């Protein structure tokens, strides 16, 4: 990881030139070009990545978040972009603190973003500002809490219908 | 003793009693058995097409586990439907909901009233009634079948059923038009709407005794059109958009359970038999066996039996053909069904009428 970390990728360089100070760190672990950028700059950076001739990211591949519960800022929103014409990828990451859990929505740039942001909100509670329809998508609206946060216990269920008691569940009949 | 026999004969000669007996015999000896066997045939034949075995496990435990290659599944289905809870959904119109299934049922059965099964012997006809309007009666009756679907869809208090009902009404009403127009040629060729006249007209020959004047030879285009239109009228695949299993679940009979659902199913199979019977009657010479009139010394009883046999066999063939079509091709989208009718079948049917008229004029 050490040597890879120090190499700077073409796109990273491009971003550093275009948005001085916005790139907080970068690495190329196992060949995946990665940049960690400033939270406020995410919308212009994504716009640039999509429109610039040298990056041409036509496709938003994936959007998710990671919960580093012991670190601060706690959350990291991760974007994966892919350029079909230039055949390269980039991973853009943004740190989001727990107390101010907001980030600009980039739904205007790619049509796919809409649902991915909703899912991210559903699972982590990260609010995407200006998103047109930020509602739960995988869980039901009555669900409380954000299941993929590390402090949500895996076994805590919130049933919608009354659960039949365990002891009346089986009739072994003629056994 | 003789008096009793005389009274019995007198009763039997009474036309009213005769008609009742004919109805009973035709429905219970011909239509119902064929329709019920069709339900099994459908399952077995589709299984054969699809490389499967099909139902074969229903057995009679007291009779040496007799299975009859799955024939008993018919009995199981029927009996189960009777004992299934009869459910009327909340908000449904109870009266219409209850009577709707029997409209289609009655309409499907009424077709058999004017179909002759064999040549008349003296005054006795093998036909329940030979009304003058003949085919017009069939048009009237098949329209009645629409009510079954529409009322079922409208009274169920379910949106999918309503969609199915509207689709069914649109489809059946438009295809009635094509049924009518495709048969105009038949009227012209045989110069009557009465079934017995049409059937007898098919017993004449071209070129001496070479080719019988069957409907299929005199009106080949009408044969195809009528068959297609009738399949659409019975709402069978590929025209099963009203009950389109994949988009509106079960269509107009979505909310029906138990015996009422069974009535819809049975009506469908009776309608299949009805289509087959009409095809044979109108286009394949009815009960007439071609060139049989050359054998002048034929005994009357044998001829009648042969005629009934020919009629039945050809009907079964058409039933089979409909099953084969059902399991081979995909189904139309609803608007395509309508487009096929109005944009393709209507012009062809009109042209057919025109050409027929011109040929008849020239021939005379």
């Amino acid at each position, binding site marked *: 990881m050490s040597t890879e970390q120090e190499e700077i990728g073409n796109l990273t360089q491009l971003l550093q030139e275009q948005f001085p100070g916005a790139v907080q760190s970068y690495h190329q672990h196992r060949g995946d070009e990665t940049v960690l950028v400033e939270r406020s700059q995410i919308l212009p950076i994504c716009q640039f990545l999509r429109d610039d001739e040298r990056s041409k990211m036509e496709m938003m591949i994936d959007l998710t978040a990671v919960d580093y519960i012991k670190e601060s800022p706690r959350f990291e929103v991760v974007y994966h972009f892919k350029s079909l014409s230039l*055949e390269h990828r980039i991973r853009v990451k943004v740190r989001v603190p727990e107390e101010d859990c907001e980030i600009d929505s980039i739904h205007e740039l790619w*049509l796919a973003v809409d649902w991915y942001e909703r899912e991210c909100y559903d699972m982590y509670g990260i609010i995407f500002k200006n998103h047109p329809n930020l509602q739960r998508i995988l869980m039901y609206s009555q669900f409380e809490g954000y299941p993929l946060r590390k402090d949500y216990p895996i076994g805590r269920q919130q049933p919608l219908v009354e659960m039949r008691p365990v002891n009346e569940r089986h009739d072994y009949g003629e056994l | 003793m003789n008096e009793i026999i005389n009274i019995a004969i007198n009763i039997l000669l009474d036309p009213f009693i005769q008609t009742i007996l004919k109805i009973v015999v035709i429905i219970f000896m011909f239509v119902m058995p064929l329709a019920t066997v069709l339900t099994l045939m459908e399952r077995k034949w589709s299984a054969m097409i699809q490389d499967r075995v099909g139902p074969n496990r229903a057995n009679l435990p007291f009779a040496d586990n007799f299975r009859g290659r799955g024939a008993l599944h018919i009995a199981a289905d029927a009996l189960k439907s009777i004992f299934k809870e009869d459910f009327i959904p909340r908000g449904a119109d109870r009266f219409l909901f209850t009577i709707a299934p029997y409209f289609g049922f009655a309409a499907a059965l009424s077709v058999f009233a004017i179909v002759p099964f064999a040549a008349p012997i003296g005054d006795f006809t093998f036909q329940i009634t030979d009304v003058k309007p003949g085919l017009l009666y069939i048009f009237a009756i098949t329209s009645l079948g629409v009510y079954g679907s529409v009322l079922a869809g409208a009274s169920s208090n379910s949106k999918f059923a309503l969609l199915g009902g509207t689709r069914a009404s649109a489809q059946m009403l438009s295809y009635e038009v094509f049924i009518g127009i495709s048969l105009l040629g038949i009227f012209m060729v045989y110069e009557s709407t009465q079934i017995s006249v049409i059937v007898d007209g098919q017993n004449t020959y071209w070129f001496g005794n070479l080719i019988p004047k069957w409907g299929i030879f005199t009106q080949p285009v009408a044969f195809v059109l009528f068959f297609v239109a009738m399949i659409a009228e019975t709402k069978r695949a590929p025209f099963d958009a009203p009950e389109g299993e*994949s988009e509106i679940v079960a269509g107009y009979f979505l909310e029906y359970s138990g015996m009422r659902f069974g009535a819809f199913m049975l009506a469908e199979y009776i309608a299949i038999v009805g289509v087959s019977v009409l095809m044979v009657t109108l286009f394949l010479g009815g009960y007439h066996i071609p060139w049989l009139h050359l054998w002048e010394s034929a005994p009357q009883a044998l001829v009648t039996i042969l005629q009934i046999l020919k009629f039945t066999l050809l009907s079964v063939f058409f039933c089979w053909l409909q099953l084969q079509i059902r399991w081979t091709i995909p189904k139309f989208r609803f608007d395509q069904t309508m487009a096929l009718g109005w944009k393709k079948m209507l012009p062809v049917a009109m042209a057919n009428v025109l050409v027929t008229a011109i040929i008849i004029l020239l021939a005379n």
Partner: protein
Amino acid sequence: MEELATENKGQNLESEMEDQADASVMTIEIGPAHPAMHGIVRFTTQIDGEEIVDMIPEIGYLHRGFEKESENSKWIQITPYTDRLNYVSPLLCNIGYSMAVEKLFGVDAPRRAQYTRVIMGEISRITDHLTCLGAAAMEVGAFTFFLWFIKGREYLWELVEEVTGARLTTNWTRFGGNATDIPDGFLGELQERLEKIKDILRECDTLLTRNKIFIDRVKDVGVLSKEDSISFGFTGPMLRACGIPYDVRRSDRYSVYDDLDFEIPVGSVGDCFDRYLVRMEEMWQSISIIEQASDKLPAGPIAIDDRQLVLPDKKQVYGNIEGLIDHFKLVMEGHQAPAGEIYMPTEGGNGEVGFYLVSDGSGEPVKCRVRPPCFNFVSAMPAICKGGYVADIVPIFGSVNMIGGELDR
């Protein structure tokens, strides 16, 4: 049936829609318990007569918490969960996940393992397309076609069972190799089965591809423009049907696909018929890939010799203290993945299946995310369906090949 869904007042969609609704528009709930929805998607659809005015998809009915379970499991314990992501082609997800972890470790599986992975993966791709096309055809009424395809799938599953021990949920790959090698005589049998599949494909081709009714149902139905498809993040057959030859097997050159010669079929318009043709052609290409790979299959081990990754031989475990310790440590502590994060894209049955793994150096993943191709397709359903007929939902949804496990995870 629409009662079913209204019961679950998910996102207050109904009230929202009712506000906009005018008199001629009817709102129907298609799904989740609907024959054409494969059980788990709900479309709140507004229709004007037979035409679709608006549509709101609602997913999540099969959200089984893949990511949460992964974060609470060891690396190797995640493999069975990946089987159940895309349950129509489980091996492709298996392989994708194992390759992702191998990328995280910085190792490569041996050549033989790679080749067998390619063979099994392509078998899986064929079963995926067979199921997809069969189900799609069934929903437009060609039931016989469906049963014939499932018959073909059955031939292949029996092969899969011979190698992996399971028909569907295989759990076959390991980090740095595979659990089992292919058995003796497998290649011969594979060839026989492929011939049968070819017969079925030819038969169905004559039955369906030039069938007027089928073409009417699918041609020019469900068209989405090239630009929108890209923006929606379409991958796999859906994108290729639009005419864009994007295939992860080619563009990212993973595994041994570089040594193999295959074409990427593309469509022209991007309608349901193109998707059907693309999938049909892909099956032929997969057959050709399998044939080439079995010809080139090298001898050698099926797993790398690295005690950090691969369980030792049972002989070693029972006869040798070092083997026993290695075994114990791997089983009890799990694989000690180095810290770091990687994204590994692979070509699944539906498109790009990518695994994004984050490790902090302990035995358990911090994050194991799978990039679901179906997610994008379903999010694009309103855009595709608007203006079409209600009956068009069926072939469109069939051609999308939505797989619940992958969509909701």
